[in-house]
């Protein structure tokens, strides 16, 4: 699955999220690739999923790509739970 993580500058929280998603992917044998982008450059990109901190996610309107909103970037459990829930809901398609 291809994931875009988004933050204000594309190198802080977005990179932290992407690294965490890749390690979750490894743990559950889900292939996760993607890129960390800033708020202007993610638009128009194709991906299966967008992941961002809650304050950033709020500003992503009208995206055709599903958005996961993470309240606490340092909470591995929150990220894992939300990601797996998304993965399990979508894998049948």
């Amino acid at each position: 699955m291809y994931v875009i993580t988004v933050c204000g500058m594309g190198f802080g929280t977005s990179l932290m999220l992407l690294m965490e998603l890749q390690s979750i992917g490894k743990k559950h044998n889900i292939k996760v690739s993607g890129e960390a982008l800033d708020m202007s450059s993610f638009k128009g990109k194709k991906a299966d999923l967008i992941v961002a901190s809650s304050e950033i996610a709020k500003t992503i309107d009208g995206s055709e790509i599903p958005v996961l909103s993470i309240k606490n970037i340092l909470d591995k459990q929150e990220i894992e739970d939300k990601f797996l829930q998304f993965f399990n809901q979508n894998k049948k398609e």
Partner: protein
Amino acid sequence: MKNKTFLLPDAVSLSAEAKTPEDAIRLAGDLLVNAHISLPTYTDAMIEAFHTLGCYIVLAPHIAMPHARPDNQVLKAGFGLLRLNEPIKFGHPENDPVKLLIPLAGVDNHGHIELLQILACVLSEPMNIDILLSSQDVNEIINLFDAGKINEE
């Protein structure tokens, strides 16, 4: 294994006084300047980024990670740690008030990915957060980030 220090003693302040987010980011930036990590103009860029991009830098309860784009205002990749005596609000609906600021500076992508890995590794452990929020011992705090490097291998 080489013993690499990610957090320099000059970049740590455990009892800072600030009234506004701007004051706090300024003090956090001063730490990076003290530790020869960045130039004062990088501090201005962090404050500017907070103004334009908002409170999402409060990435977890009580913890903010101010940063700006990596460029020539940064002398070497690094981070600092500023603890406020009195927590202040940054405007984040869930993670306010902020007690701990971790200003981050990157020069190139590779170096700062390593820093982010160390930070994520140390900060995702609640016991470490307790130490960061309460310890009076600078060395204890610095050692957390060395141990983080080792655990990461």
